[in-house]
């Protein structure tokens, strides 16, 4: 018992006295939680629309004012110069050009008019398609209001929409659980590995290896400080989420704690296992970057797993963060119970056990 206690004590002393790490551990979660929710948005807003109006009729003016009033669209120009608009499209100041053809209003009354032309900058494919959708819907609404005929659009009054769990469609609320997970991955996934590889490079690990210290004691002493730090990050994140963004867990806080515990165990165990195979800082840095990158991109944190092709979806079953993303978002936003998440918990628990055993077993005192 004594060797384990002095080793753990040593880790905390080292951490305290480090010039960089304590500041990082405090500042990173706080900074990310305060800033990132405002930035991490992948929805489409503020689509810049330029209207080339060749008709100059009441109808076309109506269209322009509807576009102006839209919450998703931003009217940046109503001009007769198509080339000017095109230049803006190429430079990036305009996202979509709407060209209303000559005699549009006149033709609408008698026959099928010439089509309204919509040209979208589709470099950002989602913005191009969603933006176009919004423009189409906005124009269609404008035209409906103006005609006397009943058109299918009036039927929209017979459909009601109830948005549950996030009635205001608050984007930060959706992203905050994901950001918390990213913080855990950075703090508990990246740093423990650095701690072991640093001892390897400096040489102190040799002094440990030549002593009768049990490798489980050593591994545990390396893990525990980061479990504590991970929990600290959780509290900080939850407090900021509550008081700055108004996000309160809908479900049980204990389930959140349990999930976080399992996840922190898993990710730090993974981190140490990787470190046991690396001898230099440069190597471990790159290896961890590679895995962390895959974790963040493929676990459903930023983009939905459901949108991925089948082969990718199957692959994500191997990624621990995928299960925790499910758990944290569900509990925070929908109030899902632990019973409804039992599969995710079993998966996460298994990963926790596997990686921690691996971390201890792959540590070789004698090579």
């Amino acid at each position: 018992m004594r060797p384990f206690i002095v080793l753990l004590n040593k880790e905390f002393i080292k951490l305290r006295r480090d010039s960089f790490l304590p500041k990082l551990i405090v500042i990173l979660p706080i900074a990310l939680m305060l800033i990132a929710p405002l930035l991490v948005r992948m929805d489409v807003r503020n689509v810049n629309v330029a209207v080339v109006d060749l008709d100059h009729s009441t109808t076309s003016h109506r269209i322009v004012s509807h576009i102006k009033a839209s919450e998703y669209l931003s009217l940046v120009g109503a001009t007769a110069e198509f080339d000017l608009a095109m230049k803006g499209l190429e430079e990036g100041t305009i996202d979509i050009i709407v060209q209303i053809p000559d005699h549009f209003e006149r033709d609408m009354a008698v026959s099928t008019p010439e089509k309204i032309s919509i040209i979208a900058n589709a470099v950002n494919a989602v913005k191009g398609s969603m933006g176009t959708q919004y423009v189409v819907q906005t124009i269609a609404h404008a035209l409906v209001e103006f005609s006397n005929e009943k058109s299918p659009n009036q039927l929209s009054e017979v459909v009601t929409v109830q948005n549950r769990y996030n009635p205001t469609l608050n984007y930060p609320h959706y992203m905050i659980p994901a950001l918390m997970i990213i913080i855990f991955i950075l703090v508990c996934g990246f740093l423990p590995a650095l701690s072991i590889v640093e001892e390897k490079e400096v040489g102190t690990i040799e002094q440990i290896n030549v002593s009768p210290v049990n490798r489980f004691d050593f591994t545990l002493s390396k893990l525990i400080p980061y479990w504590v730090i991970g929990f600290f990050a959780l509290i900080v994140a939850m407090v900021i989420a509550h008081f700055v963004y108004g996000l309160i867990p809908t479900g049980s806080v204990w389930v959140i704690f349990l999930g976080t515990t399992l996840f922190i165990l898993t990710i730090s165990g993974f981190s140490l296992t990787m470190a046991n195979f690396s001898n230099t800082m440069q190597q471990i840095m790159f290896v961890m970057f590679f895995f962390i990158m895959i974790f963040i991109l493929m676990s459903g944190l930023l983009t939905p797993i459901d949108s991925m092709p089948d082969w990718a979806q199957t692959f994500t079953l191997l990624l621990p963060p995928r299960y925790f993303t499910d758990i944290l978002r569900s509990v925070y936003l929908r109030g899902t119970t632990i019973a409804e998440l039992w599969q995710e918990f079993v998966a996460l628990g298994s990963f926790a056990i596997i990686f921690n055993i691996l971390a201890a077993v792959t540590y070789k005192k004698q090579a």
Partner: protein
Amino acid sequence: MSETVISVRNLTKRFGNFTAVNNISFDVYRGEIFGFLGANGAGKTTAMRMLCGLSYPTSGSGTVAGFNVMREGEMIKRHIGYMSQRFSLYNTLTVGENIKLFAGIYGLSKQVTAKRSEELLARLKFSSERDTLVKALPLGWKQKLAFAIAGIHRPEIIFLDEPTGGVDPVTRRQFWEMIYEAAEGGTTIFVTTHYMDEAEYCSRVSIMVDGEVRALDTPTRLKQQFNAGSMDEVFRMLARDAQRGE
């Protein structure tokens, strides 16, 4: 006849195609200061690491403090002390904290640790530096501290790997006095070095060239055998045809 504390037979270590240590055999007796000499790259450190349970031999056998190097590495570690070229102390811990750490690692109780810590600091005349960070210590002090800590659990054998690297001659002299003291107390000292003048301080000396033990005897007898005035000369004669080293 003295008791054998280290016994090595046909010990070999290969890394792929490269044979770092080639079929070495020797014995070390209790209480001696055994010098393990050779140029850089000759294989000294590799051989020592096998004896300390840091590395598995490719073939051959050996016992250290009565335990088998291949299968009982963890038992060996309870009975030996070790100090590396890099004086592996924790730079961001104080002198006192390092002592407590390593004492605890070897299973010494709090009371025993406190007592030995006092003794150690007094002996080194470090008592005022208990709360100084190791990284602030001059090199010579780090070296002495590392040696003292290596012996804190009163091991039978202390292994020293190039302990005097980069240190001035006066400090080296003082350091060897510490080694003498330890040996007089019954501790066996196994020390590797590439400083040939330090060979004179040892009870017996072995010289490694290209992974093999080319000579093994007391310094006096080696000088007679090679008709040399100093161990340096002895070494140069042996190392004339060496493939590896500086």
